[in-house]
Each structure stands twice: as structure tokens, then as C-alpha cells.
């Protein structure tokens, strides 16, 4: 008896077919979405051009909140970029089989989110054509960056994270693109042939590939944890009340993973529906993702409590005043919205049914993303708005320019992601096949 697959499971050929059909010519709805997203992006680009032309005042940046929406959104996007590498590297090392169906989409999300985040320091700095000053290079004036500055650590951490995430992503794609190459014809075949680097799946190729993939995962694991720690140092190294805390590194890392998982859910739920991938992305995956969101939410709540407790227990006047200001003054709505979205709403996932109910998953994910954006807003804008001296206190008002640029950044992210899912395999062919039953002629245990 030939034992190809277990009943109800797709066969290996099904996997190739189901992925190959997603990279065909898309329909009108897809192009309509692309046009809409491109239009919003166009508005964002125009707003950026206006800001460059008129100056940074157009972005509503004035003392004391010189770090406002741009840095908030920068930290938000870096956070989103955490889930992909966490799923692809850390869960790979833990041999969590459920990751195979979702990691490609999550990895793409990571790469595009970090690319989006990388735009914000440029937008924020104003004269972005001088951004290369941040990198160390030999110059006639013997000037070098100050390596003791957390902002320079950021440049290194994020460039390394982007590079390694892209390498990891591309390495994972090679065997899958080879599978698409072998199922394509004409120009498409030629393009995939170049992109697959002539991959054949021979034993010598797999041998080096597997070892390299494991090593890349091992290198990416500490990197995932370090990137947001380094981002948190931008704040924790300063003396601003509410920022100067040793809690910030794990607090930021947990928040990043939390928001990253929410974005993964937001992307894979429509993908599963549109590509009819119910055989691959099952309720088990939704349940696992919801559980991770719940756990990270509980950890985050613990950090929130610690933050408030240490502000009070320290006896430090400015820390206490800063907390009181945030919770009761003009930004109180933003402060309490953060707690509602990040600590209260995810509790619904204690209920088993909610963890597989699509509308609930979607709504909770949206709440989490809103909550996490406001968390960064509260740290940055509120932290700077209430400093040591009353003459430096201030209220920040967003402008049309900075708001349009921020909405445009979402359009940029979704444009990249929509483009990706139509030209590349957004489900890992090789890894999904690996976890399916391998075809055997003779059943294990000697049965025939």
C-alpha cells in the first residue's frame, strides 16, 4: 500500500499547486486596492515634499516636543517588525511546527515594517540628504560618530536587523522560488530561474543550506531581542521623568512582540480567506497566535504596574508628578486608552471560542495596534511635555502634514505587502511539506 498523506491532509503536489496559483495575474479587486493604497501613499509623499519645502514647523514640532509623531511611529513600526523574525528564528529553534504556515507572511511583514520604520528618522531629521552623516566613514575633517550615543547604537541595531532579516527572508525563499520556476512557463519561468539561483534541491545543496539556516536563526535570535532593547535605550539613557528606567528594555521587547503578533493576525486572516488556505492556516494557528497575544499582554500589564509602582515607591518627586500628569491632565484619554487596548481588551482571549473567532481576532488585533501606537505616543510626547521645569511644559497638536505622512507610511507598508503576495510564495512550500506526512511506500512498523 502506498502511504502518501494522512486523510484530510493536502499532498505535496497540492502545496505546490495552492501556492503557485497565488502568483498568477490578479483580478480587478486587487488592482483597485493597489490604486487606493498608492493614492494614499501619494498624499503622504506630497506631504513630505511640503514639509521639506516649508520646514519642520509644518510637522507641528516645537519645544518641548521635538520628538513627536514621527518618533512615535518609528518605534511603532520597529515593534511591528519584531514578530516575523521571532516566528521564523526563535520558533524555528524551538521546532514549533505550527509556525511553518505563517512564517513567510510574518517575515515579509518584518522586512516591510523595518523598511517603513527606517523612513522616519529621515523624515524626522528634516534634511534627509545628510542622513549618511550617521554612518561612520573616513572624511577630510576626521569626524566620526559618537559611539557613546544611543542614537548611533540605533543606526547600527536597525541596519543590522534589516540586513539580517532580508538575508534570512531571501535564503528561505530560494527553494520555494525554484518550485515556482519548475511550474511556470515563459517569461515568468525565466525570472524565477534567475531568482532561484539555479537551486535544484540536491543533497549537497540541502546539506549546506540546512546548517546555514540553523546558524542564521541562531544569529537572528539574540538580534530580535537586542533591537528593541537598543531602541528603548534612546529613552532610558535620558534623564527625562518616565523614561529613565532599567525596565525599558524588556518592556519594549515584550510590547514589540505583542504588536507584531497583532499585525501578523491582521495580515494572515485576509490572506487565508483570499487564497483559500484553510487547509494550511487552521484554527490551531489562530489559537496559538491568540495565546501569544494574551501572554504578551499579561506581561505588558505587569510592566505597566511595575512602572506605576516604582514611580510611586521611589519617592522621587518628578517621577510621581510625571505619572500624575499623564493620568489626569490633557492627555489622560490617550493614557487610559493605552491601558484599555493593551491590558483589558486582550483578556477576551482567555475565552477559548474568542481565540478562533475571526471577527474577535481581527477586532482585538486592531485594538492592540491602536493601543501600542498610543503607548509610544504616551512615552514620547507626554514624557517630553512635562519635564523638570514648568517653563518647558507644553501641549503637542498634530498637523495635517505629519498626520498625512503617518497615514502614508501605512499605505507604503501595505503597498509593499500587497505587491509581495502576488509575485512571491507567501506560504513556505518547503516547510509546509516538511511537516506533512512524508510519502512512504511501506507504512512504518512493517505494515504493507
Amino acid at each position, binding site marked *: 500500500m502506498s502511504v502518501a498523506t494522512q486523510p484530510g491532509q493536502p499532498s505535496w503536489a497540492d502545496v505546490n499547486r495552492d501556492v503557485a496559483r497565488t502568483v498568477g495575474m490578479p483580478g480587478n479587486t486587487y488592482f483597485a486596492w493597489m490604486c487606493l493604497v498608492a493614492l494614499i501613499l501619494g498624499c503622504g509623499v506630497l506631504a513630505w515634499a511640503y514639509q521639506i519645502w516649508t520646514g519642520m514647523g509644518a510637522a507641528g514640532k516645537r519645544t518641548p516636543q521635538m520628538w513627536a509623531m514621527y518618533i512615535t511611529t518609528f518605534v511603532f513600526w520597529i515593534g511591528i517588525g519584531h514578530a516575523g523574525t521571532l516566528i521564523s528564528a526563535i520558533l524555528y529553534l524551538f521546532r514549533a511546527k505550527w509556525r511553518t504556515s505563517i512564517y513567510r507572511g510574518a517575515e515579509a511583514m518584518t522586512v516591510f515594517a523595518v523598511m517603513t520604520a527606517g523612513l522616519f528618522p529621515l523624515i524626522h531629521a528634516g534634511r534627509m540628504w545628510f542622513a549618511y552623516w550617521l554612518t*561612520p566613514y573616513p572624511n577630510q575633517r576626521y569626524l566620526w560618530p559618537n559611539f557613546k550615543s544611543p542614537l548611533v547604537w540605533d543606526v547600527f541595531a536597525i541596519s543590522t536587523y534589516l540586513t539580517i532579516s532580508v538575508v534570512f527572508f531571501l535564503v528561505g525563499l530560494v527553494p520555494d522560488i*525554484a518550485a515556482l520556476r519548475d511550474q511556470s512557463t515563459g517569461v515568468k519561468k525565466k525570472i524565477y530561474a534567475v531568482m532561484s539561483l*539555479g*537551486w535544484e534541491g540536491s*543533497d549537497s545543496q540541502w546539506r549546506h543550506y540546512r546548517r546555514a539556516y540553523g546558524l542564521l536563526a541562531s544569529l537572528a535570535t*539574540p538580534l530580535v531581542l537586542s533591537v528593541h532593547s537598543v531602541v528603548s535605550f534612546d529613552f532610558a539613557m535620558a534623564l527625562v521623568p518616565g523614561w529613565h528606567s532599567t525596565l525599558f528594555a524588556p518592556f519594549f521587547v515584550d510590547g514589540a512582540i505583542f504588536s507584531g503578533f497583532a499585525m501578523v493576525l491582521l495580515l494572515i486572516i485576509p490572506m487565508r480567506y483570499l487564497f483559500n488556505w484553510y487547509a494550511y492556516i487552521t484554527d490551531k494557528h489562530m489559537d496559538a497566535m491568540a495565546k501569544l497575544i494574551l501572554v504578551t499582554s499579561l506581561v505588558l500589564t505587569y510592566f505597566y504596574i511595575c512602572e506605576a509602582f516604582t514611580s510611586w515607591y521611589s519617592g522621587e518627586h518628578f517621577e510621581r508628578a510625571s505619572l500624575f500628569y499623564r493620568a489626569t491632565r490633557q492627555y489622560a484619554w490617550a493614557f487610559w486608552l493605552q491601558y484599555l487596548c493593551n491590558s483589558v481588551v486582550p483578556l477576551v482571549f482567555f475565552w477559548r471560542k474568542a481565540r478562533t473567532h475571526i471577527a474577535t481576532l481581527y477586532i482585538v488585533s486592531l485594538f492592540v495596534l491602536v493601543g501600542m501606537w498610543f503607548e509610544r505616543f504616551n512615552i514620547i510626547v507626554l514624557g517630553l511635555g512635562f519635564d523638570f521645569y514648568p517653563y518647558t511644559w507644553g501641549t503637542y497638536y498634530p498637523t495635517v502634514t505629519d498626520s498625512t505622512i503617518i497615514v502614508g507610511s501605512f499605505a507604503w507598508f501595505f503597498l509593499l505587502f500587497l505587491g509581495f503576495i502576488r509575485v512571491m510564495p507567501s506560504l513556505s512550500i*518547503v516547510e509546509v511539506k*516538511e511537516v506533512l506526512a512524508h*510519502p512512504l511506500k511501506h507504512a512504518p512498523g512493517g505494515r504493507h
Partner: protein
Amino acid sequence: MAMASVLGIFAHVDTTLDAIRKLREKGFSELTVYTPVPVEEIEEEIERVRPLSKVRLFTLVGALTGTSTGFFLTIWSSLKWSLVTGAKDPVSFPPFIIIAFELTILFGGLATALAILLLGRLPRLSPSPTYDPRFTLDRFGVAVSCPPETAATVTSLLTASGAEEVRR
């Protein structure tokens, strides 16, 4: 002496494994095995007689280069362009560790990717003569490089192991 190539195409993991073992027993060691996914049992069988992959050596050298570059860059540039504050030494290790760590990961990762290309002999400009597009779908291939006079023996061994198709 010109060698002949015989390719057996299999539908199952166990029959492929059986063919590899039988070929090895008969002294045929010039094998290339194609699989749609990495299969642990096949890998173990092949690894038995082959040295371990050198990928990790690339990673190690890359990572150490990154560490030393990170420390060299930060220490050298701090001495070259000293920003002395509070009469403290311009060379300060704790912040430099962050740069060294990032460059360790960066160089280690890039060297690992380079290893895949160099050791896996990629990119390949044209497919191997024994390659079949079904090997990325759901079929396994065992290609044997052997003297022409033994090609008939290899063909019968592959057929006996359960090959769906054998071609020279």
C-alpha cells in the same frame, strides 16, 4: 575515463533510502540525491560517509571579524576624534560592546549567506543533466555517476528498489 550517469526517479522516501543503501553496498559512491524537502533519514545516510558542512566555519570567521571590526572602529575613532566629557577616558567599553555585538551578528550572518552560495555552488547558470523539475514537486531522484560498463547493474538496482523511472 568517461563516466555514465544513471538517474532513478522515486515517489517515496523509503524506496529512495533503500536505493541509496543498496548502491552504497555495491560500491557506488558517486551519488547525487535530489529531494523536494530536506529528509532527515536520507541526510543521515549521506552524512555517514561525508565530512560535516563547513558553513559554521564561515559563520565563526565572519562573526569574529565583526567583533574585532566593532571594537577597532569604536576605539580607534574615539582616540582619533576624542569627545572628552568630565575628564573621562574617551575609550569606554560598555557602549562599544553594543556596536561590536551588532557587527558580530551582521558579519556572521553575511558570511553564512556567502557560505550557502560558495559551498552549495550557487548560482548555477544551467541545470544539471540529471535534474528533473519534478524534484521540487513530489519526486525524489538518485543520480549515479558510474563507469559505462556498470550502468546496467545500476539500472537494475534502481528498478529493484522501486524507481518509477530510470534513465541514462
